[in-house]
């Protein structure tokens, strides 16, 4: 278990490891190992958090709800006790780690992903207080109907059902009061975090990583940003045949409250019980969503967490949670496009290597043969190197992660992830884990060719045809970045 969790440590950890190796190659091996040990600590604290709480509630039997109510966070002090002094930050890191898998059983991974469940909900009064402060009136006035019982835990908050005065069913995410300030303060003092990465200053790379982590987590603390992200995605995918994005109700959203259209559908665990055909279609839509957003909208929703999807059958998927979105500039995106084009389409390994070097993924002039580099990187591109149906198995997903964490490879010492792509890596690993759990099969190359801006192939599947029709209808939308 411990080893497994060690490996499950955030993509952040992996990235840190790679950065460290690059700088400290030779004498830095020990430091690297200790860096991983320290991050493992974060995951360990988080992981066991998660495995304990459900047992307590399960043991309570029919008193479960009562127990949850009795344990509810009633005051800002309760929240500080539960999530203050780094615990909120650890939980967030653990959450980031929760879908990165190196031989983790699905059960353990689910346990990790339930991390948030270990934090009791806010009492109805506490949640109502936050709504009142943010929206000016208590929730039963702001909304026509307000369900004081939360329906789900959310990132540093919880979700309530409500009905607006104009009759729309909505989901209202309410943030724990004080949590943003406490996590921001913990993240402001990054020396512990930096030492957990076990690096002595000055190291530009680690500073960049710590800064990126801090910035991304801080962004998630402001729900207005999330609302803006979601609004952009909803506008972009309006009318899409299989991709759904709940609309934001802007006038009922603020820094600690975000209101969106209520979506219902099957959860990821339920999808896993559906036919393989349904799972394949859902996998296809998730894949299209991720890469359409990246290549065409230049935006990446950074949270491929099983809890962030609702499934409606026939490949229709609603994508929830836009707390962690990364926008790319053309300049940032270009090297990625070059890499995939040079390796998979042009089949030009030397050009691929140059693209990696230009993007900062690979140290220039590394004393390695290009064959070796291509061999090392191939696993990340395996899905799209050949045009034929491929099944993403859990084994394959694990192999991708293992390669990512493979510090013994001679290539690893020369590979790094520039700061702009930290989140991208996180998503890639999470995406593979997710599709692996579905055992999803598709001709991923053919789908990718539809999306790749340098190919723009015709539709290869029924969903692709519906998508092509949608695109044809959206005049002027194609190739337009979200911002």
């Amino acid at each position, binding site marked *: 278990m411990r080893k497994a969790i060690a490996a499950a440590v955030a993509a952040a950890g992996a990235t840190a490891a790679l950065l460290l190796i690059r700088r400290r190659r030779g004498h830095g091996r020990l430091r690297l190992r*200790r860096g991983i040990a*320290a991050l493992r600590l974060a995951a360990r604290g*988080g992981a066991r*958090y998660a495995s304990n709480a459900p047992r*307590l509630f399960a043991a309570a039997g029919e008193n479960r709800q009562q127990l949850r109510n009795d344990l509810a966070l009633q005051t800002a002090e309760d929240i500080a006790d539960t999530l203050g002094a780094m*615990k909120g930050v650890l939980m967030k890191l653990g959450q980031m780690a929760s879908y990165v898998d190196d031989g983790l059983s699905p059960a353990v991974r689910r346990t990790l992903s339930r991390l948030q469940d270990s934090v009791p909900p806010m009492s109805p009064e506490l949640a109502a207080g936050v709504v009142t402060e943010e929206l000016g009136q208590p929730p039963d006035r702001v909304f026509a109907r307000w369900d004081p019982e939360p329906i789900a835990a959310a990132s540093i908050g919880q979700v309530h059902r409500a009905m607006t005065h104009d009759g729309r069913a909505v989901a209202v995410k309410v943030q724990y009061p004080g949590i943003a300030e406490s996590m921001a303060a913990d993240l402001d003092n990054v020396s*512990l975090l930096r030492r957990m990465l076990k690096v002595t200053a000055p190291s530009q790379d680690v500073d960049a990583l710590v800064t990126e982590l801090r910035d991304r987590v801080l962004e998630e603390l402001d729900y207005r940003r999330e609302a803006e992200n979601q609004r952009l995605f909803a506008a972009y995918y309006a009318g899409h045949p299989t991709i759904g994005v709940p609309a934001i109700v802007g006038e009922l959203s603020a820094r600690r409250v975000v209101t969106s259209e209520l979506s219902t559908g099957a959860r990821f665990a339920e999808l896993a019980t559906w036919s393989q055909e349904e799972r394949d279609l859902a996998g296809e839509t998730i894949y299209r969503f991720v890469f359409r957003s990246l290549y065409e909208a230049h935006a990446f929703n950074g949270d491929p967490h099983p809890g962030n999807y609702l499934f409606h059958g026939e490949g229709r998927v609603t994508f929830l949670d836009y707390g962690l979105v990364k926008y790319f500039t053309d300049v940032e995106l270009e090297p990625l496009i070059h890499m995939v084009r040079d390796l998979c389409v042009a089949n030009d390994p030397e050009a691929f290597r140059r693209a990696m070097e230009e993007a900062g993924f690979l140290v220039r002039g590394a004393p390695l043969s290009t064959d070796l580099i291509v061999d090392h990187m191939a696993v990340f591109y395996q899905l799209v190197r050949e045009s034929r149906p491929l099944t993403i198995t859990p084994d394959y997903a694990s192999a991708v992660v293992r390669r990512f964490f493979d510090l013994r490879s001679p290539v690893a010492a020369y590979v790094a992830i520039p700061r702009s792509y930290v989140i991208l890596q996180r998503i890639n690993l999470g995406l593979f884990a997710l599709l692996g759990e579905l055992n999803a099969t598709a001709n991923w190359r053919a789908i990718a060719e539809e999306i790749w801006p340098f190919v723009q192939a015709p539709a290869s599947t029924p969903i692709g045809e519906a998508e092509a029709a949608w695109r044809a209808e959206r005049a002027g939308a194609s190739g337009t970045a979200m911002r």
Partner: protein
Amino acid sequence: MTAEAYAAAEGLVERSAAAYVAGVPEYPADDGYYGPASVTWRVAGDLGRSVAGLRALMLQALHPLAMAGVDQHSNWRSDPVGRLAATSGYLATISFGDRAAAQRAAARVRRVHEHITGTDTITGRPYAASDPALLLWVHATLVESGIVAAESFGTPLSAEDGDRYVAEMTAAAELVGIPPGLAPASLAGLRDYLASARPELRLTPAAAESMAYLLDPPGLDEDVAEIWADIRGGVLAVLPPWALEMYGYPPQSLTQARQTEIRQALGVFDAVFLGEPGVLEARQRITLRMRAARQA
């Protein structure tokens, strides 16, 4: 004095956690000697409690007779982790257990103390672990350390709550065999007593060795050791200057940034502790009872 080497500190977190869990009852017959509305329960759950415990041990060790008793009789050298775990288990039972459990635990400790007598080789003075004067030193340093650590790293107590805590803790003093009326019942009384005991104190080789071990226990998990280094920093930062001087440490200053960092480390340590089997449930049992008391 034996020259036996100290055993490694493997399993410190695991065994302390298990002892703590065992001390927090699932079905208490009563609220024990303090109860969920007490200051004692708050201090026992305070973020600063690891610093408090280690600070108390460092002060206690400066009493040569108290130190000699531990060094010559207990399993401190052969199983220091077991000894620390047993102590934290005892404190959990006294604090959170019902009266019967607290009495049983205290009776066990008093029985053990009866057999601990001898002569300190350094001062040449005879000692007995059941001597109220020694017990009082141990008691008073623990109580004061709880207040001091909460002040710097946890939730500071108001002056009234500080007095209440000292008064509440006289129950623990009596349980362990200190005659009623002897343990200070106010913060001022506690501080007077601590000052009056200063002439008794000195750093014996046994104390120096013990505390060097405690501040940097070999064999800790690497990741726990990383956090332990910050906790050690916290302990030194809140030791009285005279105690630092006796141990040969330079005066410490605690910047706000360092204070925050130590608090964060304590939070991480707490999360690790919380991850041990049963700890979260034990915490929740305590939380539920404190909530009920708050609402009553």
